[in-house]
């Protein structure tokens, strides 16, 4: 049952060293405020799951939080490389990063299977791709009806999923609108979940078939206005595309990156770090 906590408390209580952690959000609603709090609390040795690592995981990897990354597309969307991710993979800086790599279709199915309580996801995927050669988690099953060989991958089952959403009502039910990505699946697939929201309202005023997470499917809710910036929150604020472009320069150099993180994440208070 969702508890309303401060962001500091929510992360302290639910994200532990060595955990498998997913911060999800497909371009939209990326939980930057929560990720920055994880960095400030100096979590170590995390296995990070995320379809599109994006700037937030570049920051977490560059700050040494992660030992493993499970992902399907690791770039700065529309801009280019994630330099901290590349530095970790190519030069093992600041530490060696093990990677386990999927396609989007497979990762989306792995979230769906995790939410559905299944051990595996089945898809018509990876045909002719070299990815199964480098990822031992890509296996196959034979369809007992048609004999067709289909790809199978393990369901995503993180210890904790962290997402950002538009709003919660006072009972702790959460509304997600717009590009909803895999957030519902990622929360339901996890043992624990932390949701940051723009605001708490009396009523969600949601359409009957809107994407709503009930309070009893969530561990903790923290109010974090602007908590998705520099990504965006549909209905609240737009994406800071300029910052995504600037990040390319900031992250290219180890020292520039470190200084930026000190100035904008490490030495700021919770909630004003974006």
């Amino acid at each position, binding site marked *: 049952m969702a508890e309303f906590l401060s962001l500091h408390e929510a992360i302290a209580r639910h994200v532990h060293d060595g955990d498998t952690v997913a911060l999800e959000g497909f371009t939209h609603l990326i939980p930057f405020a929560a990720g920055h709090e994880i960095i400030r609390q100096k979590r170590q040795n995390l296995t990070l799951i995320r379809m599109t690592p994006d700037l937030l995981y570049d920051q977490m990897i560059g700050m040494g939080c992660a030992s493993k990354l499970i992902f399907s*597309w690791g770039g700065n969307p529309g801009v280019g490389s994630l330099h901290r991710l590349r530095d970790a993979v190519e030069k093992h800086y600041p530490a060696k990063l093990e990677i386990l790599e999927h396609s989007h279709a497979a990762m989306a199915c792995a979230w769906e299977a995790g939410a559905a309580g299944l051990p595996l996801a089945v*898809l018509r995927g990876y045909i002719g791709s070299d990815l199964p050669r480098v990822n031992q988690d890509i296996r196959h099953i034979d369809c007992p009806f*048609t004999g067709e060989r289909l790809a199978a991958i393990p369901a995503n089952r993180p210890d904790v999923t962290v997402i950002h959403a538009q709003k919660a009502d006072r009972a702790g039910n959460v509304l997600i609108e*717009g*590009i909803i*990505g895999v957030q519902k699946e990622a929360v339901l697939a996890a043992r624990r979940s932390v949701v940051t929201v723009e605001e708490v309202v009396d009523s969600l005023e949601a359409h009957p078939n809107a994407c709503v997470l009930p309070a009893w499917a969530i561990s903790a809710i923290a109010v974090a206005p602007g908590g998705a910036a520099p990504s965006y929150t549909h209905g609240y*604020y737009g994406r800071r595309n300029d910052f995504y472009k600037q990040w390319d320069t900031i992250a290219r150099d180890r020292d520039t990156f470190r200084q930026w993180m000190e100035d904008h994440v490490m030495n700021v208070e919770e909630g004003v770090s974006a």
Partner: protein
Amino acid sequence: MSDMPPVHDSTTARDYTATEMMTVTASRALTNGTTCFVGIGLPSEAANLARLTHAPDTVLIYESGTLQTRPDVLPLSIGDGELCDTALSTVSVPEMFRYWLQGGRVDVGFLGTAQIDRYANLNTTLIGDYREPKVRLPGGGGAPEIATNSREVFVMIKHSPRAFVEEVDFITSLGFGRDGRARDDLHPETARHTGRGPTLVITDLCLMRPDPDTHELVVTSIHPGVTREQIVDATGWPVRFVDAPEATPEPSGHEVSTLRELKARTERHHSGHHEEKSA
């Protein structure tokens, strides 16, 4: 799907760049009414140009879950708010890949790539060895299944020897495999759900299509002002030409001006903060 539709405004553009030539040519490859799963970057530019010119009813799908979207400006990312605001409907990402792509609803998968080889295999994973890469690229994203679940695939990529290689370091997304035969011996049930693969490669120099027998990419049309030598020099394998390559038609003035307006609108939109409400 890949036949060139007639150009409605036949006034040839007075000046245009090689990249504009590529984008306009790619846009012309999309027939009106086509359902197109769009990759970010060059394909997104071409697909939206098609929608704004000869193919207003082209259905654009982005992997962020936005179905039948009509962005007024080009998205910087695959999940820009603009895509959702102008979509018929926005579904979850698992639904997008399961029901719409794997479900067989996509006519054309429109992809960019970092490397492409003789048999149209695509590499967006890395240069060098997998465990100790020289250059780590972003990875597969939606491409591995777009490449096999769409009825056919169009690829857009600028011509250079680094991009057009004899054999890709890593097959992220299947063209026709290392021997050109990978789509020939699939299980019948798999074959029934697998598309024809890359049927058209659009570069800034020419058009290439797979040879009907061997599936090797061959030059079928040469852009205005481009020489065979330029294409040979920019291709990392001994590239072949069909017997009588076509001359790619020049872009029209309307197409070039529509493209430039789209890019200028996009530039204005993406500069500066956008703190206003996105909905």
